[in-house]
């Protein structure tokens, strides 16, 4: 079998392979990030951190259905001060670690980023797109071009790390929002966050199952929507796109990269195929590349465009 290259460089960060664990998935502790890295992820993302500690929504917070997963965790996290103590010595993790930072007001983002400044994160991801947490993301109007521009500019002011702005698949003007982020100095777009929200009712209990009633839809259901967003973004902006949404096989990852993604986040895939989904996806990508005589994964980025 011929040797193929799957390493990619994303905003000057070198990844051994294009898979990244998505925020909110196994990102609570440094030990868990390390375990995910050992299972093949090219980079890992921490669970989103806010200024103050948050307990999040009550359980049930995560359920699945025929076509994917529904979650409304509600950004549970220990707050920036505790997080800054947890995420130290990040070189032990073995791969680049991406911080995920959320806030209700512009100042919150700044405060969290400053609080994390002693740590060794490789990039900062800013989700402006959560569909199920009051005070954050879409429920706080952060998904508009103006709000995106304002928050990104503010974040740009206080950090020299690469900034990834994470967008929602719900907004029809996703390219406009991405351009606003690009104009304000973002280094990459993460597309996409969970969609919806959706609701699942238990018909015997006659009640929505999630305690927050509605939650974001992820997994297989989301993939065609994510691929379309990535395809459109690839044409609209110059900064790289990190594709996320429904990837659980090598074929899915290749599809996203052909749509225009430079790297691929995996969340729900951990449920479908286990914690070693990263390794499995990479092995499947490599096998496919060998069968199709493609020696460098970077060559397929955007290949589905004319």
């Amino acid at each position: 079998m011929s040797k193929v290259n799957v390493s990619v460089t994303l905003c000057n960060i070198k990844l051994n392979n294009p898979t990244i664990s998505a925020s909110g998935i196994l990102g609570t502790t440094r030990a868990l990030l390390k375990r995910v890295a050992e299972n093949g992820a090219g980079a890992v993302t921490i669970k989103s951190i806010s200024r103050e500690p948050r307990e999040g929504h009550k359980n049930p917070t995560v359920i699945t259905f025929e076509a994917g997963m529904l979650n409304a965790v509600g950004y549970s996290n220990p707050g920036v001060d505790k997080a800054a103590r947890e995420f130290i010595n990040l070189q032990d993790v073995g791969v680049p670690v991406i911080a995920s930072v959320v806030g209700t007001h512009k100042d919150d983002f700044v405060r969290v980023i400053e609080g994390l400044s002693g740590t060794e994160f490789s990039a900062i991801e800013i989700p402006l797109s959560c569909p199920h947490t009051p005070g954050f993301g879409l429920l706080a109007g952060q998904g508009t071009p103006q709000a995106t521009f304002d928050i990104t500019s503010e974040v740009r002011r206080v950090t020299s790390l690469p900034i990834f702005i994470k967008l929602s698949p719900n907004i029809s003007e996703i390219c406009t929002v991405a351009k606003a982020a690009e104009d304000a100095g973002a280094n990459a777009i993460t597309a996409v966050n969970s969609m919806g929200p959706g609701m699942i009712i238990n018909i015997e209990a006659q009640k929505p199952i999630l305690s927050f009633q509605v939650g974001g839809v992820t997994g297989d259901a989301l993939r065609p929507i994510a691929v379309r967003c990535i395809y459109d973004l690839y044409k609209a902006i110059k900064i790289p796109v990190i594709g996320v949404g429904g990837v659980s096989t090598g074929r899915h990852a290749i599809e996203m990269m052909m749509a225009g993604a430079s790297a691929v986040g995996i969340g729900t895939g951990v449920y479908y195929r286990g914690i070693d989904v990263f390794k499995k996806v990479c092995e499947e990508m490599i096998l496919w590349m060998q069968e199709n005589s493609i020696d460098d994964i970077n060559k397929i980025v955007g290949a589905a465009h004319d």
Partner: protein
Amino acid sequence: MISTRLWALHMIEQPIMVKICDIREESPNVKTFFFERKIHFNPGQFVMVWIPLLDEKPFTISYIQENLLGISVLKKGPFTRVFHSKKAGDRIGIRGPYGKGFNLQINSCVVGGGIGMASLATVIDTLPDITIIQGARNSSEILYQKRFKNMRLCTEDGTMGFKGTTVDLLDEIIKKQHFQKVYTCGPEPMLYKVVELCKKYDIDCEVSLDRYMKCGFGVCGQCDCSGQRVCVDGPVFTTSELNKMEDFGKITITKTGERVFINKQ
């Protein structure tokens, strides 16, 4: 076509409503709730119990018999308080079972502290000749007295059985009798001491841990213990696994995800 869809249903993690068909008072603060339901289950696995509009929490299956399964619930906080108020005929939601159970071996011993006995109960059912050590604060809190004969009991206040800890009692018994394995569940400081004691005697332990849980199926990371997900990699861990888990016995994780020291009792 349809067969492939039915298959897919096996992957759905959603509560199924089941009717409480019987309730047994095990102690002033512990009730066992019974349901008619057939599931594939290994001793040590758990289910997530949903009370609509309230919350969802993990509980070990403490009884299993053909179509009947039981959950023993210690009244502790808001959720278990409401749970205790449920009557026969009421319905709750169950999803699971989740996690890895115990690897059963004859000529072994179980060491249970408090409600920890619930996860060991089905181990005992499966291995009837096993040595049973149960510890409680006082005699009224001893569980399953009628269910299991020949339990070696200990209470902190000496109101029943050995006066002292389960660890002290285990130490005494080990001196006289060799075990293949020790299965244990209860407060984590106790578990830690059991494991340390068994290491001295070169006996393997299997320990059921307790961490705050959300998804129950290994994606959210809430139940981390040193990189192990208690919900799917556990809740049962072996001595050799625990040797690599620095947090074991020392650090747990709160609802916010903060790692905090475990209260030494």
